[in-house]
């Protein structure tokens, strides 16, 4: 099968590759001027002006959206109708280029290159098997990759400042960081001195049957502890993914004071279902449907909406200790983070559901 044609094809292909390798950095060098240290301490060279950012996963994408939606190069996945309501049109119409978040939608390199991102920002939750392919991809298309911590709300304070500085919007970054810090500074003293035995026992119900939940150690349920509650599901998460199945009898025997329902249908149904009728939270009418517009306030996706979620949950659990005006807080938050002016009716629907 060896023939001169094949050889010449090979040579010209090689030549083409070389040309790409040689040309690509040449095109980028003049714009690439500063060294920055990402949040894990890696030193990375980035262009002076960063106009387009490729977020590797939804939490990162949302955070960028709040900071400056114009900097987002492409979406991780198409948004659904419900999310469309409060997001900018030009943002939801961006091309979908995928991301690495373990649910398919793995990016096609050519699509990534087509939207011309200057840097790639990756939520560094912990080192997983996905880090290598991501770093490899970044290297292949010669794009700087920076790791960002977004695990806790304190991380958000730092991340807003860091990314704001990085993409040339330091005032905006500082403004969002200051707001977040203010929320933490308000909530923490309010919960100070709350005796361990007075902490409410909370069950986080996921899934259409309400029988999927998260362990207290899981990053999916951090808000419960942050708001001064105690997660009744005391365990180590069996996987990063979470969603542990529990039986109704297990929930009954632990008898939570409060149930947080992710599925709004379930939250309505629970009061009618005899199976749940013996749980204290149901008897005391303390089942709360977690608001989810435009993204969930609690988790899945973990996003900056948790900053509002923390206020909501602390207020629901301990209205006397943390008597915040949730309608006003919601209005201010949407205005600042999402640039949305909610009407009183919308806020009412969102909070009462």
């Amino acid at each position, binding site marked *: 099968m060896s023939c001169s044609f094949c050889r010449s094809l090979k040579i010209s292909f090689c030549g083409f590759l070389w040309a790409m390798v040689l040309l690509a950095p040449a095109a980028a060098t003049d714009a690439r001027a500063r060294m920055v240290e990402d949040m894990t301490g890696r030193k990375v060279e980035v262009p002076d002006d960063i106009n387009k950012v490729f977020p590797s996963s939804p939490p990162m994408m949302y955070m960028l959206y709040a900071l400056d939606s114009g900097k987002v190069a492409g979406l991780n*996945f198409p948004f659904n109708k419900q999310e469309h309501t409060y997001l900018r049109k030009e943002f939801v119409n961006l091309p979908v280029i995928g991301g690495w978040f373990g649910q398919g939608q793995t990016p096609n390199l050519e699509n990534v290159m087509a939207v011309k991102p200057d840097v790639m920002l990756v939520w560094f939750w912990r080192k997983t098997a996905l880090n290598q392919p991501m770093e490899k991809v970044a290297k292949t298309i010669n794009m700087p990759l920076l790791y960002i911590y977004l695990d806790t709300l304190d991380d958000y304070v730092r991340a807003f400042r860091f990314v704001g500085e990085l993409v040339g919007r330091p005032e905006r970054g500082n403004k969002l960081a200051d707001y977040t810090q203010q929320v933490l500074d308000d909530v923490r003293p309010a919960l100070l001195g709350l005796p361990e035995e007075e902490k409410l026992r909370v069950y986080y119900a996921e899934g259409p049957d309400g*029988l999927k939940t998260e362990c207290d150690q899981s990053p999916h349920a951090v808000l419960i502890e942050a708001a001064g509650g105690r997660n009744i599901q005391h365990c180590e998460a069996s996987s990063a993914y979470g969603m542990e*199945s529990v039986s109704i*009898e297990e929930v*009954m025997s632990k008898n939570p004071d409060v149930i947080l329902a992710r599925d709004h249908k379930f939250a309505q149904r629970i009061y009618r279902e005899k*199976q749940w*009728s013996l749980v204290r939270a149901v008897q005391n009418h303390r089942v709360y449907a977690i608001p989810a517009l435009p993204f969930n306030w609690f988790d899945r996706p973990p996003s900056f909406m948790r900053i509002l979620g923390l206020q909501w949950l602390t207020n629901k659990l301990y209205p006397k200790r943390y008597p915040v005006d949730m309608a006003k807080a919601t209005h201010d938050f949407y205005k600042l983070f999402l640039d949305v002016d909610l009407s009183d009716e919308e806020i009412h629907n969102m909070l009462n559901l």
Partner: protein
Amino acid sequence: MKKSFIFGVLALTLGAAILLSFTQGRYPLHLVDLWHYLQHVLFHSPMADELANRIGVLLCDIRLPRILAAVVVGAALSVSGVTFQAMFVNPLVSPGILGVLAGASFGAALGMLLSTEWAVVQVSAFSFGMIAVGLALLLSHFYKGDRLLLLILSGVISGSLFTAMLSIIKYLADPYDQLPAIVYWLMGGFSMISLDTISTLAPGILIGILIIVAFANNLNLLTMGEEEARSLGIRVRTMRLMFIVVATLISSLTVAIGGIIGWVGLVIPHMSRMIIGPDNRVLLPFSALMGALFLLVVDNVSRQVFTVEIPLGILTSLLGIPAFAGVLRVARKGWG
């Protein structure tokens, strides 16, 4: 004589297991309380309202539906397994052979994608299970040749088609709520069960099982091969179609109740055949009891061994695989 003895033992064991299951669960319920409750219900002996209510809910609204579901689904899957194995004269066939489980999985996923009503999901699962098998039957008619072989081949095609479409649905599903719901549903389990669901769907399954058992003799004749069965005056095509429709119907209904529960329909028929022999008149009811017992025990394990519940489909496979490996070693004997 010996067979009826074995039958009696099995029926008694199942009865005892059902009763015992009422006392099992994560919620601590003392036998003494149960005893008082029984007296309270039967003889109106005095009992605190709150306690009586609590035990009532635990027994009737939480444990009873699950026990019924496990028994009915276990019986349905093994009867359907026996039927298919006998009809295809092949010990490796399971209820999913004609694509019913793949179709039902697709249907359930589609339902979850398009609707938030659970009833829609159930109806969709059931309907697409039937549609997948209908497609397999239709495909098999396009070709000439060995009918059984073509049926199996068409079943594989139909099953693959719906599996591929299921993957598309998973890809389209919203990764936060819909996708996990689909994945968990496909692992099987009775956590969504309620008394309403089971009392609506169980009669259909029971009638299906009764029909198959009533025609067990014809199934025996089909096992002898197409020519022989025909020479004995059986309308092979009609009979075969009837068995396929009924067996598909009951396995589709099990998916609507508890998602995809694997291995029961493959392993239990074999175990039963080893114990009681290949005569379908005995084998069918016997494997129904065996399947019911197996799934009941597995579900009891699933709902109480750990604080987190293990999806039923995983447990049946984990427990079913070693059993199946053992059975395979002696499979030839049973079919002699």
